[in-house]
């Protein structure tokens, strides 16, 4: 596609060499992000920190979809901002193809920003209302001029629009002339234009109507198959995450409490929070109605500015013992076949099994 830019220019592979097969493409190690809480107008005094992300470890392999689920305020959106370098981590590392993103300079960072793209939740806020669809999709090429030579850009734009299921004739239209689902396709085309390796999908279907959600989910799956993309799929909708993800990580109050393949996490959740979360999701099959036991959690999520000592979940947990207040449980395999951050991890089936 970019044969004419070879020659003397460095190729992407020179800047960020590819990782060997099977090694993680993106690795997050003990990632932390604290936002200072300040007081005062002119002379700001830091009076504490909101621990939005507090020790997250995940990895993403090529062609894989990792689902990151959690409720509002658990820090999952901050993780997405950290991953696309819109925020700087307070501590910990993001390794991309083995290199620390925080230590990347000039060219490597630019290449990283090309290879790791983001799709936002709100298709109404994520497109500049004063730019045509063509300009929006092609914008990345003005920044990364080597991807598409200036001459063929219009045609490339139209090809991309066609690829994501938009009528290529609409290249000169403005975002407000499209429906929510179509706008989300524009956002996907904008990300695809840079030929990324990884796409961070931050609640990409939450704002869409149910009948349109499936179209976008299917499109994302097709694009993954065609281009070998890796997705970090961040969502609060556990059903969508189960459908699209190979592996799933569950987040609570800034850290990951359970991680495993989709069938491990949904089929035999072992962390009490995961169990409560899954038991709250309504089932769709009438035959399963009433068969499910509901675990109702008491109270609200504690403030991330002042999280509980030890295990974050202990204030709402029915299994909590003295040890939970003292020792934060590590995210390790406790005999369930997948890691769980609970001292008393125990697999339990909370989602009724499909009867069909």
């Amino acid at each position, binding site marked *: 596609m970019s044969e004419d830019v070879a020659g003397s220019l460095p190729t992407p592979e020179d800047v960020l060499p590819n990782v060997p097969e099977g090694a993680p493409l993106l690795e997050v190690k003990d990632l932390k992000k604290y936002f200072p809480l300040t007081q005062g107008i002119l002379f700001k005094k830091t009076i504490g920190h909101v621990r939005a992300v507090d020790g997250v470890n995940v990895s993403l392999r090529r062609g894989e979809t990792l689902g990151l689920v959690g409720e509002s305020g658990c820090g999952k959106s901050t993780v997405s901002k950290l991953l696309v370098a*819109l925020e700087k981590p307070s501590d910990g590392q993001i390794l991309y193809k083995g290199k620390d993103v925080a230590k990347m300079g000039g060219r490597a960072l630019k290449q990283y*920003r090309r290879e790791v793209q983001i799709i936002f939740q709100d298709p109404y*806020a*994520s497109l*500049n*209302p*004063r730019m045509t669809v063509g*300009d929006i999709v092609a914008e990345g090429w003005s*920044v990364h001029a080597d991807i598409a030579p200036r001459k063929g850009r219009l045609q490339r734009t139209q090809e991309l629009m066609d690829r994501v299921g938009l009528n290529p004739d609409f290249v000169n239209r403005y975002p407000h002339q499209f429906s929510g689902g179509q706008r989300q396709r524009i956002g996907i085309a904008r990300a695809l234009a840079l030929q990324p390796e990884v796409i961070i999908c931050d609640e990409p279907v939450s704002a869409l109507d149910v009948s349109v959600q499936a179209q976008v989910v299917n499109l994302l799956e097709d694009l993954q198959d065609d281009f070998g993309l890796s997705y970090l799929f961040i969502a609060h909708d556990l059903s969508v995450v189960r459908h699209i993800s190979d592996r799933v990580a569950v987040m609570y109050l800034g850290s990951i409490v359970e991680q495993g393949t989709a069938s491990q996490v949904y089929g035999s959740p072992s962390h009490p929070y995961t169990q409560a979360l899954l038991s709250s999701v309504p089932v769709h099959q009438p035959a399963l109605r009433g068969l499910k036991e509901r675990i109702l959690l008491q109270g609200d999520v504690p403030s991330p500015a002042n999280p509980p000592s030890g295990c974050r979940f202990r204030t709402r947990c029915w299994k909590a013992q003295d040890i939970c207040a003292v020792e934060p449980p590590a995210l390790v395999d406790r005999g369930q076949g997948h890691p769980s951050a609970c001292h008393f991890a125990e697999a339990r089936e909370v989602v009724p099994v499909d009867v069909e």
Partner: protein
Amino acid sequence: MTDQQQKDLQHDEVQAGTTTGLAAPSVDVTSSRQNSLWSDAWGQLRRSAIFWTGAVLGVIFVSMALFPSLFARGVDPRDCDLANSKGTPSAAHWLGFDQQGCDYLANVVYGARNSLLIGVLGVLGVLLLGVVVGAIAGFYGRLTDSVLSRIADIFYALPLILGALVLLRVGPSTGLPVISERGPGAVAVALAAFGWMTAMRLVRSQVIAVKSSDYVAAARAMGASDFRILVRHILPNAVAPVLVYATITIGVLIAAEATLTFLGVGLQPPAISWGLQIAQGQSLLRTAPHLVLFPSIILTLTVMAFILMGDALRDALDPRQRS
């Protein structure tokens, strides 16, 4: 099925867009040209009656300022005869005479140059200061914003006329190029120096709103530079409300010039401007109302011309307003 139904069906399917049936991309390039915001805005302006009304009026007044002799029916505004003092309009002298017995039509026409110069230069100054300072304050935030916003607050505390009055009073003693000679340039500078704050606040608040939007985050995540983000994303979205404010301000500044003249620090006779005419005419309102009436009408029409153009431009720059 009737033709109408078939057409509806087709229409609905187009509306629906293609779905995820993903064939290999085979695209015929149907439009060889890619539109931009500005070309679309021009296409919209061309079809706007409001814009053309404003533009025609604007062209008339600008040519009045450039070639006054064409509009003054060949009369020299300084060719006066005291015998005609305060003469009322007649077939030969459409707008009558002023107190000195000078042809008033010629005077009003010759006043266009100074008044427009002050209005337009003043607003350009306001826009320049307002957009630059507002964009910097909004975009960089934190300390920069605090400092610039407090400076704007200090300027707000000074009334426009008072500030301009002081500047024009001390101007001649400073020896600075434009300020020291009391011409339209000095008046425009004085008015801009004390009138930029509202434009700055408008731009600042818009920039702050747009800066935190997802599409700016998307551009940033792509690696776009600050300059690119400012020029491509933030300013086009932030400038529209300022444009409308600017067109109204042209009229405010032309009127402010009249006040400064009245206070003895604006343009002074024998200079000719609408502000001077209105100021001088006020004392004769009972005996010769036409001396206030005619320059006021022209001033109002001028301001209207700019407001109409500004309004049309704002709508044209907002794709959501288009049908």
